[in-house]
């Protein structure tokens, strides 16, 4: 896809995120928005997947280790055609299949996740299985930067590095904010790059909102042999919604009706600018 198309799609994903969280009256918009461009790139360009055949045997796998940002994943899946975009506002409602955290029974979701630190281990298992049987699919997992405080992340990293799982790509959404404040103040996991390097990862640092950099990083990851890759993407929490940007208050809070209107107006404006840019 052309970058402009990706940007437009990512903007639709962001609208989906805000709409889902508003519909749920709960959920995590901040980290969903910071990763929206990455979700978009994964599901619209990078990954070998088929919305008509979500269980396709050799599809690439994705595990959202930072499962609380399910609205971002769901919005990408819906826009990609795995399920109707109109279902997004049913998020977290009793009876809806769109559970608060990713559930393996949802079309396009490869693993239940949300208890932080656990998703990366499952992704490692998927990558290991491919290695054991000579299968060609790749496995992707996305972690929050605060999530790096979980010890299990490093157990998984140690194993992946030891086993040289070069079919595994770990993405860290480094928006620098967790519930209690900046990650550097709560219990700093910095330097993130040095830590993954120490566990035998190839580390790539990118701007999370630059599709050229995202594309180049995945190409480099695919070409990297003999070790897993970690893409640390420097992102803006709440990206795209003026009052949510870089504001920790919007980690896990839903906008009220007025705030929702402002958020959607922000995104509509971005959409109009992208349309103009295309002319």
């Amino acid at each position: 896809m052309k970058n402009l198309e990706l940007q437009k799609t990512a903007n639709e994903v962001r609208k989906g995120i805000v709409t889902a969280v508003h519909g749920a009256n709960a959920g995590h918009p901040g980290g969903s928005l910071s990763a929206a461009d990455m979700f978009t790139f994964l599901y619209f360009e990078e990954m070998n997947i088929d919305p008509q055949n979500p269980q396709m045997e050799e599809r690439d796998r994705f595990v959202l280790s930072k499962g609380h940002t399910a609205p971002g994943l769901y919005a990408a899946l819906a826009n990609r055609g795995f399920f109707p975009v109109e279902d997004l506002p049913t998020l977290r409602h009793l009876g809806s299949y769109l559970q608060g955290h990713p559930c393996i029974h949802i079309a396009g979701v490869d693993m239940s996740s949300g208890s932080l630190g656990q998703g990366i281990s499952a992704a490692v298992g998927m990558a290991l299985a491919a290695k054991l049987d000579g299968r060609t699919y790749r496995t992707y997992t996305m972690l929050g930067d605060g999530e790096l405080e979980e010890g299990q992340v490093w157990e998984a990293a140690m194993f992946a590095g030891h086993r040289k799982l070069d079919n595994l790509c770990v993405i860290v959404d480094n928006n620098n904010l967790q519930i209690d404040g900046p990650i550097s103040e709560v219990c700093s996991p910095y330097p993130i790059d040095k830590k993954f390097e120490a566990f035998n990862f190839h580390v790539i640092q990118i701007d999370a909102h630059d599709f050229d950099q995202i594309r180049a990083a995945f190409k480099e990851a695919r070409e990297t042999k003999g070790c897993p890759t970690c893409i640390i993407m420097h992102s803006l929490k709440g990206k795209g919604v003026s009052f949510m940007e870089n504001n920790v208050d919007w980690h896990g809070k839903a906008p009220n009706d007025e705030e929702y209107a402002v958020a959607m107006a922000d995104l509509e404006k971005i959409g109009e600018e992208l349309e103009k840019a295309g002319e």
Partner: protein
Amino acid sequence: MAEEKIIKKVATRESYGNALKELAEEFPNLVVLDADLAAATKTGIFKKAYPERHIDCGIAECNMVGIAAGLAAVGKIPFVSSFAMFAAGRAFEQVRNSVGYPHLNVKIGATHAGISVGEDGATHQCNEDLALMRTIPGMVVMCPSDDVEARAAVRAALEYEGPVYLRFGRAAVPVINDRPDYHFEIGKGTIVREGSDVTIVATGIGVDSALGAAKMLEKEGVNAEVVNICTIKPLDEELIVSSAKKTGKVVTVEEHSVIGGLGSAVCDALCKHYPVPVCKIGMQDVFGESGSAAALIEKYGLDAKGVYQTVKAFI
């Protein structure tokens, strides 16, 4: 006892390792995971025969369970092996959220359960695993009583699609199910001794103790029925209730806390269908301690004599 013959003894962890090796060809998707305890869990037997299908995860049980979940999600049948304390205890939340909730085809082979771990003491004697695993929706929980049953349970777990917790012991225990008509089915208990005065429902090493106790009781004119419950979940409620209807009194025996394990499961079933007095033999809300397996089993009243005395006092 004059008629006593030499009884073969095998630790069920040994049965576990042997069964995995024996079933490897038949189940090509079977892989075995360990956390630096292959020698102790006896999966080393499998490792020796199929090194490429044995994955040592190092001393990191939580990650091991997560890896198993990932393997299962793409079609493997992983057996996760560690001591019960770490598989069910340390990694409880990983078992719940990464295996139980997505209902993945992961088998947990937990060895060194209960106080028969012996000398290592309380930190390694897990008396809570059955309780923890029972609470996970969709989890099958099994606790084999001997070598024959342990091997059968491993096969049944492999043939079953979904998460299974298997509990094995460290100490060698008598082979009690070696008979031509032996048949194993998940969720089915067995009456290993018929009686009419009291029902002793036992699991794991408790079955042998219950049989021994029944012999002692017989000499005093008490005819005890002994029910072997290998599958604690789903529980064979029908068998337990029908036996309770016959005898009117139930004693449960398990090498586990009396809170949440077999005894609790039996009480749940009886409360619902046919309430009778129940006496629970097991760890009475205490931690274990160091000592030989035999000495500990005797101290905590889990040997034949202990069960006999408790049953006698109860009825």
